[in-house]
Each structure stands twice: as C-alpha cells, then as structure tokens.
C-alpha cells in the first residue's frame, strides 16, 4: 500500500454505468478522487487541461483512466492513441472498460498501449467482484511512475 490518494478519470457516456463504478469505488472510500467525463473530447480536454478544464492547469493529472470504447465525439481507441503519444500522458495507466469483447478491439487497444482490457459483466455479482478486484489491484497494490 502506498497510502497516497490516486486520481482516477472515468470516461463513460452511460450515466448508469458511471454510477455503478462510483458506488463500487465508494466502498474504497476514495470516491472523491474520481472524475467523470461523458465523451472522448471531454476526456482529452481534461487530460490536456484545455477547453473548459483549462482552469485545472498545474493540478496533478490522474494516474488511472477507466476508458469506455464506444463514446460520443472522439472514440475510446482514439482517446487511447492520443494519451499514449503524448510524453506527459504516456505514463497514465489506461484500463479499457467496455461492453465490447471483439478480438479486433482488444488487439487494437493493446497495440495502442492499453494497460489492461476489461469487459463489463452483465451480472451484478460479477461486476461488483470485478470492480473490487480492479480497485484492490490498481488502487492498493500497483505502483505508478512518479
């Protein structure tokens, strides 16, 4: 355990799914560190501290991005590509969290530098178990680049 709070960016267009993630992460008592955006362009603006997020200039960037693939404006894969090509953003862990389990998407995501690929389970118990495991691994044990 590194004891630090970890900023998370959740990129998810479906408000209900975002709520599911927030509720599960609330049990970790770190929900305060979770920022939610609903489309690809907003995600890029947030990470690059531009547009309506320019006031965040200088504040710490998220360490972890939970990224849905089918999102409005800029697709998830494109967001991933742009994160991984920018030196300041490259070290952010990007976890794809989507309903697609297509081989093409999985392969492409890893090619673009995704750190993990998870599909949303339909069942409540599975989704909770997965989010908890994700929380333990990425929020408790994983070390991030400084």
């Amino acid at each position, binding site marked *: 355990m590194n004891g630090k709070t970890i900023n998370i960016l959740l990129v998810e267009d479906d408000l209900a799914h975002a709520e*599911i993630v927030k509720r599960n992460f609330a049990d970790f008592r770190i929900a305060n560190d979770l920022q939610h955006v609903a489309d690809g362009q907003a995600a890029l603006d947030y990470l690059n501290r531009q547009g309506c997020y320019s006031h965040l200039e200088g504040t710490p960037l998220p360490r972890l991005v939970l990224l849905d693939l089918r999102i409005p404006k800029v697709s998830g894969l494109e967001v991933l590509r742009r994160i991984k090509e920018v030196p300041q953003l490259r070290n952010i862990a990007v976890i794809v969290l989507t309903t697609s389990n297509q081989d093409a998407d999985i392969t492409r995501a890893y090619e673009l530098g995704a750190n993990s690929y998870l599909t949303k389970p339909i069942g409540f118990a599975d*989704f909770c178990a997965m989010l908890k495991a994700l929380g333990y691994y990425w929020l408790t044990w994983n070390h991030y680049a400084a």
Partner: protein
Amino acid sequence: MRHTGISINPFDIFFATPKGHDPVLLATLDRYLDAWRKQENSFYYTSYHQWRSPSEPTTLKRIPDWVWKALTGVLAVTVFAILWIVVLRRQVRTATADLLRREQRLQIIVDLAQKETESTAELLDYALNQAVDLTESRFGYIYLYTEETRLFTLNSWSKEVMPACSITEKSTIYELDKTGLWGEVVRQRQPIIVNDFPAEHPLKKGYPEGHAPLTRFMSIPLFSGKRIVAVAGLANKAAPYDRTDILQLTLLLEGIWRLVERTEITNELRRKNAEMERFLYAASHDLKTPLVTIKNFLGFLTIDLQAGDHNRVIESTGYIARAADRMTLLLDELLVYARIGHLEEQVDEMCAGDLPRQALVELQDDFRRRNVGAVVTNLDITLQGNRRRLAEIWKNLLKNAVNHLGNQPAPLIEVGQVTIEGETRFYVRDNGIGIDARYHQKIFGLFERLEANAPGAGLGLALVKQVVEHYAGRIWVESAGDGQGSCFWFTLPKAVVNKTYGEKR
C-alpha cells in the same frame, strides 16, 4: 465468199505458154481440161460445181462442231473457276477478319475479367475505348439508362472526343424526351446507323455549339433481359457503318455488361457484409449497455431494500426504468433500420414536398412543445421510389433538427430544394446548436451520438444515410459550429424525376 467485193473463181483453170511456143501442148492441156469439165466424176467437176452452185454454198465443213462445244466448255469452266476462287478468297478474308475481331473481343473481355476493378464506370470506360478501336471509329460514348425515370446518365466519353469538343460543361444527365437522334435507339429499341450525318434527317435535333462535328454515326441499345440499361454510340469511322459494326459493338458490350453486373453484385455484397458487421458490433454493444444497468441496479436495489435506504431505492428504480426505456427505443429504431433496407422496390411517384409535410404532422407534438417554426419552401420536384423509405429521410432529419435546437429562443427549421449544376439538392436547415466540423462525418455512423444523454438511439442519421445511398445520393452537413445551426444537404439521383410534380412530361 460471193458476197465479198473480190470475186474468186478458184476452179476456172487456164493454161498459158509463151507466144508462139508449144501450141500442141496447149491444145492437149485444153482438151484435158475440157474433158474434166464434162466428166461428172472428176475431182475438178465435183469441186467446181460445189463451189459455183448457189443452192449449197457451205457444205464443206471447216471446223467440226465438237471443237466449238469443247472450247465453250473449257471457257465456261475457267470463268467459273476464277469466279469461285475470287468468291472463296473474299469469304476467307471476311471469316479471318471476323475471327480476328472475335479474338480481339474475347481478349478484351478476358483482360477485363482479370482486372481487379471495383468501379462499373471504369469497366465501361475501358469497353468504350476498345469499341472505338475495334470499329475504327473516331470517338464514342456510353450513357447508362434507367427505364423508370427515362433518364440517361453519362458514363464515359472516349478520350478523342474532348480535344474536338469545346463544350466545357457537358450535361451528364439527359431526359429521353429531350434527346434527338441519339435517343432514337431507346424509342425504337433497336440499333441505328446514319452514314451521312451532315445531311438532313427528320429525327435530328442538332448538337450543341462546340460539339465535335459528326460525319457518320451509329448507336445501339444495350439490353439486360428486356430492359434497356445503357446506350452506346460510335462516330466518324472513315468507311460507312454496317451490320458488322453493330454486331461488334453489341457483342462486346453484352460481354462487358455481364462483368459489370457481376462486379456490382460483388460490391453490393461486400458493402452489405461490412455494414452487417458494423451493425452487429454496434448493436451488441448498445443492446448490452442497458442490460448491464438493469441487472446491476437490481443488485443494488436488493441491498438498498435490506438496508431500508428509501432514497437509494428510488434512485435505483429510476436507473432501471431509464435503461428499460432505452432498450425499447433501441429495439424500435433497430427494427426500422433493419426493415428499411429490405423494403420492396415498388415505385411510387410523389411530390417531394409531401414527405416533409407528412413528417411534420407526425412530429407535431415535438414541434409544438418547443414552439418551432417550420417552413417548407419550393419543394415541388417529382420523386420516384419507395414512399416509406424516402419518407424516413425527412422524418429523421426533422426529428434530429428538433432534438438539437438547444436553447434557441426562436427555433426555425426550413426544408427545401435547389438545383446546382443540373443536380437537385435537398436541404433541412435549423438554427439550433450546430455541429463542430470535427464531427461532420462521424454523426452519420451507426449509434453515433454527440451527446452522452442525447435523445434517440443514434440511428436516425445512419438510417438517412442508408436511404440516400440506396438512391445513389450523398449526404453532408454544413455548420459553422457550436450555436451556429446546421444544414443537412442530400441528393437522390435515382429517385429524382426532373419535373415539377403534376406537370406533364
């Protein structure tokens, strides 16, 4: 002989001696002669009488008849043999030329079959240039023809026509009823040949100023089954056009057309497959999303009920209800989308303006709620196609417009048509939130939405695009960006009939 000017008496014989010499010998010879003249069986007597007798002047045969007959026979055989050889040589020459042309034609088709081309236009373009060479013409054209709309669409002009032709803006679409001589192949449904083009012709309407001058001209209709699908024309061969040229062009184009049809079917299949894949991908994601929500909030609901957390129970049921609504919407839109591709190709004729007017009636509640002004202007062109399918275009564009008005205080949606460069373009314009240039392409994709909580399933514009492309049209959007309103433009070449609705053709 006796009719000639010179009289010859070959059998009067006289003897002579030098004067005073041998009178005895002379007398003896005369005596013998005299005796021969009287003696009936002497050679002299018979010969003399034969020649002098007027009753039978030609009893003596100079050349026998059989010689004449034989000669005539030989002569006849010789003449016949020469004629036969000439004819045979001509036949061999024609047959050789025919075989060569057939081989050339086959070669062209084989070449084309091996060519990996995806465009019909390219195939026909190639065929045209080959036909020009094959018939030794100077130039030619191929127009595609649609029997339903009675319209010609230019596919290609051979390369030589351009330098001779100073028409810069050549029309690409012609109506059958406005064509002159070259439309005759469709009206008569058979090939035509005009070998003295400059002469007066009752069907000729004259070609436009600057058109390449024509000397000879031929044209054929190209049939697919009983329908005319294209017309091809060739012009300015040095020698007159004849049946062979018609045969050449017909056989070549029929061969090519089979390839064209095959290519089109392959392309269509490829397109459908790709579309199906995209559709399945998008549908599986978008249908799964509400399902995940429903199952998970049912889980939360159980926990909330056990904990007696009343507020969370209401919150959870709200998420479940919205997800179920969204699922219903998705399924409804998916059904419309899937069905529209498989509508029968019935042909209704309608006024374009009726379709948005009908959609406005269907959407009147939405329009009234937002107090939207709607204007349908100058939309009176005739459309031919499936009415239900065409109606989806305006219905979805209007629904899209009314859903994206933002907080515009005086919302206005305009619908109309303009003709630019002979092409009829339709538009649906609003003064709503507008669309950033970055998303002008993306919005037409399946299940694409620009706002996470926008109403609709994101199928409307994809459906419009599908219908527009079904009628060989294109769709695009013009918008200066956020808050600047949007204008959706589209064309429907295969549905537009170039006349005002109700007007006689």
